[in-house]
């Protein structure tokens, strides 16, 4: 444009074109993506990447192997469903955050998020559902990594993979919405508990002024619709929590109690409102 006096477009030098093409092919080693460009010179790099990235999520027609869930630092959440485990931040956590950032970076809402370089993982919870071995239900895997940025603002990054008939996989990454209105669970007396992310039956959020939590979820019976209450053991680390409360349907609800040094200091209840938007931000599927 004349009024901006922009430098004119330049022809792309062949050596620069080659370097860009090579980089696009040479996907970062921890990624599970296949290289996109069909270029003979990059075949060796692509092959090496494929071997490395094939390891973390290995599925069979019978469900998932323990490759991802049986990390040395992973422990089963006491009292939870057998497949729920929590682990310290690890290489998988970083890779999952990279995927969530990829969803953010290609979203018009990218400006609402702190840069990826400031995301620090706090813990990762994995829920592996073994498949029934036949038909469409071949298992699923969901990992949620809690993270915070330099300002202390929390976020949750979900990575999931579903196996369907013929071992066909679909994979997706979803990140919490930093602008979503929190779910108020309990507040008062210097303590505050609120949810900031819900997906696949997992509720995550912030617990301030308490050191432990108990949750009791209420969900309608699938056949009779009668409300059924059950205890849900949460993961609580560094002021962030995640708990499996199941699918939300009217009249679903969650009751929470917060404790400090073993003393109950706060309690509250929340009833599911289907009119509220889901608390998820950008996502991407592969």
């Amino acid at each position, binding site marked *: 444009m004349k009024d*901006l*006096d922009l430098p004119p477009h330049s022809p792309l030098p062949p050596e620069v074109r080659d370097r860009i*093409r090579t*980089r*696009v092919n*040479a996907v970062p080693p921890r990624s599970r993506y296949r290289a996109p460009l*069909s270029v003979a010179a990059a075949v060796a790099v692509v092959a090496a990447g494929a071997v490395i990235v094939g390891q973390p999520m290995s599925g069979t027609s019978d469900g998932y192997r323990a490759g991802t869930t049986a990390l040395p630092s992973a422990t089963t959440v006491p009292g939870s469903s057998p497949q729920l485990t929590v682990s310290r931040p690890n290489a998988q956590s970083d890779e999952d955050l990279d995927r969530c950032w990829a969803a953010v970076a290609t979203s018009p809402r990218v400006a609402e998020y702190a840069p990826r370089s400031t995301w620090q993982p706090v813990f990762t919870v994995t829920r592996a559902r073994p498949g029934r071995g036949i038909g469409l239900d071949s298992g699923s895997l969901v990992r949620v990594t809690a993270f915070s940025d330099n300002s202390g603002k929390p976020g949750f990054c979900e990575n999931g993979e579903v196996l369907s008939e013929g071992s066909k996989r679909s994979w997706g990454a979803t990140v919490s919405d930093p602008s979503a209105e929190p779910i108020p669970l309990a507040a008062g007396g210097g303590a505050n508990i609120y949810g900031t992310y819900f997906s696949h039956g997992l509720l995550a959020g912030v617990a301030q002024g308490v050191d432990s939590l108990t949750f009791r979820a209420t969900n309608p019976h699938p056949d009779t619709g009668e409300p059924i209450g059950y205890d849900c053991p949460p993961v609580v680390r560094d002021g962030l929590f995640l708990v499996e409360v199941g699918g939300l349907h009217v009249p679903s609800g969650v009751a929470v109690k917060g404790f400090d040094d073993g003393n109950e200091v706060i309690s509250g209840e929340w009833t599911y409102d289907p009119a509220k938007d889901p608390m998820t931000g950008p996502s991407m599927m592969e």
Partner: protein
Amino acid sequence: MTIAKPPRGAAIASDVELWSRAADGDRQAFGELFERHVEAVWNHAYRLTASWSQAEDLTSSTFLLAWRKCREMRLVRDSALPWLYTVAGNLARDERRGTTRFLHALRRVPDSSVSADHADDVARRVDGDARMARILAAVRSLPRAERQAVELCLLGELPVPDAAEFLGVAEVSVRSRLSRARAKLRTKLREQP
């Protein structure tokens, strides 16, 4: 490295067709999209960064994300450029706020090139870089809606109808934003030494 250009048939496939095939995993189709648009994206990336070396990184990242996202994206007006330009703009903003690990990872990829190249010819481009940096500083000060329109239509030189459809607004809105932005940019650029 040997440049392997994708084979072309008698008819040139549209971006929509190539994008659709790439979404199904056709790397040859994505390669053709890459060859078709890499120069435009690289030039646009320069206008977003005022740096040829950063433009190279940004172009790589943009096409990597394009490969990852093509299954869920729909093209408008048979051109992949509005989407590619927007991705490049988002990545450029993040790069300014704090370099991503994603880009760091890309930079760690071994580079066998040892010869002097386009990006090394700094002296010849100092004036252009400085001018571009001044323009960029002015563009970044614009309100978001105006900045988006400027990045697509002025820096990226996309037709207004394409930008309007991509942004989901009326053409008249884009023209209005551009008009306001031009006036502000002229003022800001005149104020700068």
